[in-house]
């Protein structure tokens, strides 16, 4: 059962601001999603391997060969917050 508090907590974890009214709405919607998945629990899955990936493909690798990185200017192009080639963030402890 998803409570309003739980929605707010999840919102915080995902750094999404959710106001009180929204929290009520999301709680209701998330509960209905969970109910739906609850129905899937009724299916007998004995002896079925868990699906970790939707495609039946394994071992997709690349060789250990260097490819060109982006120029520093392009790396930093999406931010104003930069200094001496670094991204700049607020003080973090």
């Amino acid at each position, binding site marked *: 059962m998803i409570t309003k508090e739980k929605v707010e*907590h999840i919102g*915080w*974890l995902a*750094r999404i601001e959710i106001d009180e009214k929204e929290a009520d709405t999301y709680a209701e919607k998330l509960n209905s999603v969970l109910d739906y998945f609850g129905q899937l629990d009724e299916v007998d899955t004995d002896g079925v391997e868990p699906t*970790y*990936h*939707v*495609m039946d*493909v*394994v*071992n*997709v*690798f*690349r*060789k*250990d*060969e*260097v*490819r*060109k*990185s*982006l*120029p*520093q200017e392009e*790396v*930093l192009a999406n931010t104003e917050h930069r*200094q*001496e*080639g*670094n*991204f*700049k*963030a*607020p*003080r*973090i*402890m």
Partner: protein
Amino acid sequence: MVYDNPDGVRIGLEVHVQLNKLNTKLFCGCSTEYHDDEPNTHVCPVCLGLPGSLPVINEKAVEFAMKIGLALNCEIVGQTQFHRKNYYYPDLPKGFQTTQYDYPIASRGKVVIEGEDGERVIGVTRAHMEEDPGKLQHIGSIEKSKGTFINYNRSGMTLIEIVSDPDMRSPKEARRYLDKLRSILDYLDVFNGDLEGAMRVDANVSVFGGDRVEVKNISSFKGAERALLYEIMRQKNHIRRGGKIVLETRHFDEARGVTISMRTKEEEHDYRYFPEPDLVPMRVADKVPDILKTLPELPDAKRERFNIQYGIADMHARALTIQIKVANFYEEVAAEVDPKDAAVWVADILKGELNYRDTDVDAFKVSDIIEIISLVKQEKITEQSGVQIIRTILDEGGKPQDIVVSQGLLKVEDDIVAKAVEEAITESPEAVTDYLAGKEKSLNFIVGKVMQKTKGRADAREAREKVLARINK
């Protein structure tokens, strides 16, 4: 003697090893050689976590991980895969770390260390692959910092996290475990341990069966030992005062040598792992036989071989096999001189001088140590002079022969004569008695013996004087 672990100490270690000998990062082709370069010059859309980018696993990284797993006697599971570990912190550009969760590539291994009371087996819970986060740097001091610089050059580097069972009973055993791990990893040639951040340690420690405390921010092996010593003392004192140890994460302050509670929010452990949809699973267990063939002779096996092949003391065999470089150096020396002499000179003398100067065996030539050992063996120089030559080479450079001449170390000739005189006199008690009774000619017999023993290298007049001086003493 059995170690009874009076404080019920249990230590488990999590060691992050950066596979910096790979050419590229774990999921993209960015070069791993960023250590001397400008910030944010070894990044691409993948390791920067830009939308629409797609990670592809570095095959060599998987091979290295398997090598490490097998060297730690782990099982390689049939199917392994990556998960997303979700948390927000600026060193993670994507908002999650790609790591392994319930199917790590290697699990249930073991490492043998020299424990408090003889050999001890430390269990390896698991070894899994993950990506390194970027690097944060505070602008100015940590207290007055106005902001943080973020450099993503490290982001996406391959890490292997090796998690041990809580099998260590003292900071010393923890240190031995770390040293052993480093030794094995050096043998495997998968990383350069001298580069910044190549091995990072987190420690879990509990006393008297209480809750464990995690200590983070340990920057060296010595630091690990100090952090653990402090933390064990802190926990014991806390319990003695009636306190209770609670599950928490503490931060090691290297400068002050103390651990500080980080009072982390509970939320931080709410990682919401889920399978990484951008990466398909890996089935690599069938490669195990091939990888096993590429494994070098590891430290324990090499030590045993040295014992048998060279007939040297186990103490020497162990000291010589910690670093593969030293082991190879020793074998080259042992091929030219008596392996037992070689063991003493390399393990006891040369290693001591190298450690004292905080340098390694690369700083010394195999041919030089062979020459020094030979000079000592031929009694052309004393052992003490041999040590002096090693020191001179390390401090000022030069060749053994030249140093022998420039420092006049060949005066050993005197020692040879002195030794011959001693022997000649002990071997000729009758001649000595005769001489003392007045038969001057008996002296010639003894001097002749000295000349014989020194193969004529001694000066006859000098030898005569020496014999006289010795007898009349």
